[in-house]
């Protein structure tokens, strides 16, 4: 990890903290009844989105999931507009019409969260095709879960990207569970990355709790995509620390399993790592955390004080 500049490391650390604080605050506001619908939190998985997206430029694309707040923030999304969207307010990313599962911001290349699991995979292939045909060097990164790796579109979308050698990176966030169904009941193989063999593309397994490891693996994949080397399938082994959605008791997961993974908190371990290499001090840690907390206070204030969308929005935006 020597070759990772200190600023980059700090930037990633800050991003992970901001995601964590955003999600914690979302959890609080949801419990308080301020956020309608349902929300799926990224807590525990921050290292994956952060380490991968750290390699992307503003013009690059990402396709996100139902658990997408972290991807949005890592790609440069604003927490105030994100929170406002969760609050169903007019100032939200989608005018309050999409909510947590449908946040998109084309200005920063965020092509959308997904309510239909796996739907982003062929769409990512299409965005990569578009970049190829327009002759840009844009890379597309598609995030999805272990559950999504069993949906037909995983197969079709990745195969097409491989056949056309498109600039896309497929990142499977394997958190071992699809709601209550463990990977042991949904796959007969140990590593989802092995499915890359069926498409003739590289498949890599990485520790999704180690942002530096993710950063390194993703770096090669993004470089490969940008330089015409085609797609890569990255499997990041990670874990969601909370229920599937807020309100999910999650009793189906063994306590010991949860505890073991929580011990490997990606932010804590990265913190220790950075302290060890003197890239971070206790003071700086507090400073970053306070900033994040203040940012989320402001985001909630912004969301709360924002007006709801006008009634005309029910009919607006169907057609160009």
């Amino acid at each position: 990890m020597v070759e990772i500049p200190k600023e980059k490391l700090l930037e990633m650390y800050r991003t992970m903290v901001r995601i964590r604080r955003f999600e914690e605050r979302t959890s609080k506001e949801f419990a308080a009844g301020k956020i309608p619908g349902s929300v799926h939190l990224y807590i525990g998985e921050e290292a994956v989105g952060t380490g991968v997206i750290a390699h992307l430029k503003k013009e690059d694309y990402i396709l996100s999931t139902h658990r997408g707040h972290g991807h949005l923030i890592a790609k440069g999304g604003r927490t105030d507009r994100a929170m406002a969207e969760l609050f169903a307010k007019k100032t939200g990313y989608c005018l309050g019409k999409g909510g947590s599962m449908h946040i998109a911001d084309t200005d920063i290349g965020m092509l959308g969260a997904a309510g239909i699991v796996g739907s982003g995979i062929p769409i990512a292939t299409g965005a990569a095709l578009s970049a190829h045909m327009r002759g840009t060097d844009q890379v597309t990164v598609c995030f999805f879960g272990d559950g999504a790796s069993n949906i037909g579109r995983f197969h079709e979308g990745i195969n097409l990207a491989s056949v056309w050698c498109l600039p896309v990176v497929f990142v499977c966030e394997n958190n071992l569970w699809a709601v209550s169904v463990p990977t042991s009941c949904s796959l007969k193989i140990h590593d989802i990355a092995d499915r890359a063999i069926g498409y003739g593309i590289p498949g890599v397994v990485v520790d999704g709790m180690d942002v530096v490891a993710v950063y390194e693996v993703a770096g090669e994949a993004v470089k490969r995509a940008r330089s015409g080397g085609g797609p890569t399938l990255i499997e990041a082994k990670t874990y969601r620390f909370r229920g599937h959605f807020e309100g999910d008791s999650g009793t189906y997961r063994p306590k010991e399993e949860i505890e073991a993974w929580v011990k490997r908190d990606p932010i804590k371990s990265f913190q220790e790592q950075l302290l060890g290499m003197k890239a971070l001090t206790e003071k700086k840690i507090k400073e970053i955390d306070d900033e994040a907390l203040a940012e989320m206070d402001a985001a909630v204030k912004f969301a709360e004080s924002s007006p709801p969308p006008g009634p005309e929005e029910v009919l607006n935006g169907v057609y160009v």
Partner: protein
Amino acid sequence: MKELSFRQAIGEAINEEMARDPRVFVIGEDVGKMGGLMGEMGEAFAKYGPERVRDTPLSEAAIMGAAVGAAITGMRPIAQLRFVDFLGICWDEIMNQATKMRYMFGGKINVPVVITALSGAGRRSAAQHSQSLEGMMSAIPGLKIVLPSTSADAKGLLKSAVRDGNPVMYFEHKMLMWTGPKSPVPEGEHLVPIGKAEVKREGKDVTVFTAGFMVHKALKVADKLQQERGISIEVIDPRTIKPLDKETILNSVKKTGRLVCFNEECATGGLAQQVAAIVADEAFDYLDAPIKRVTGPDTPIPYGQYLEDIWIPSEEKLIKAIDEVLA
């Protein structure tokens, strides 16, 4: 009569049918250990275990395809698809396989598969988790479709669906599954025939055709108009969307001469248009007023209470339409 919540009624129907017929089994995501999103399958899983209440990978096409394959080889699967919005990724299994096999194979094969899924808006779940697809699905020949509005119908229709022997789409309206109040369900064996509508309230001035969760809004409006203005509304609940019980609808309109269709669907391609068309042909001479339709607009369903409540057909809009046909 005992009082059951909507989801308890569904759970009871599944338990009873699984006890009655060893060929009946449940296949879907999170139906096992989790007992289904609403816990409605919990008891069945406890009783019959993972062999007959089968958790699957996240693979809707495989769920539906496997259900079809099991159905044509002697089993009686209940395919649990969670949200109707997910039917889009197993649409072919429904539109081209389950519902066409019997016909295109010359009537030899039966496809006794029941598909259950949550339908409807009201939970602030946004565009991909709030749709009502009864109109769209009824364009599929070979499919039967039911949409219960009470606990009693929920239980009786599900039991009939399992025994029907044809592909049956069973819609569970979210608002009834989550917040539906307990309502009476007959003790013991209780079956509601597929293809029979029910007059949920008798009246003589205007016929209101409505289904699912909307039935309860229509009944509120009927009471209100009766009390406040002495207007007598007849509320028809088809219960079965396909095949539709035309006679009950036509007889009502022949009596009242006025029809308002009140359906939670987009304006275009929904049930409301189907019923209006049937009446405009077969009861035309009895009509004293234009046939009004109160539905959602032709838009996806927006997130959040501010907009979703405007999208969903309201009691106010129903009253306005009733006034129009009475004008």
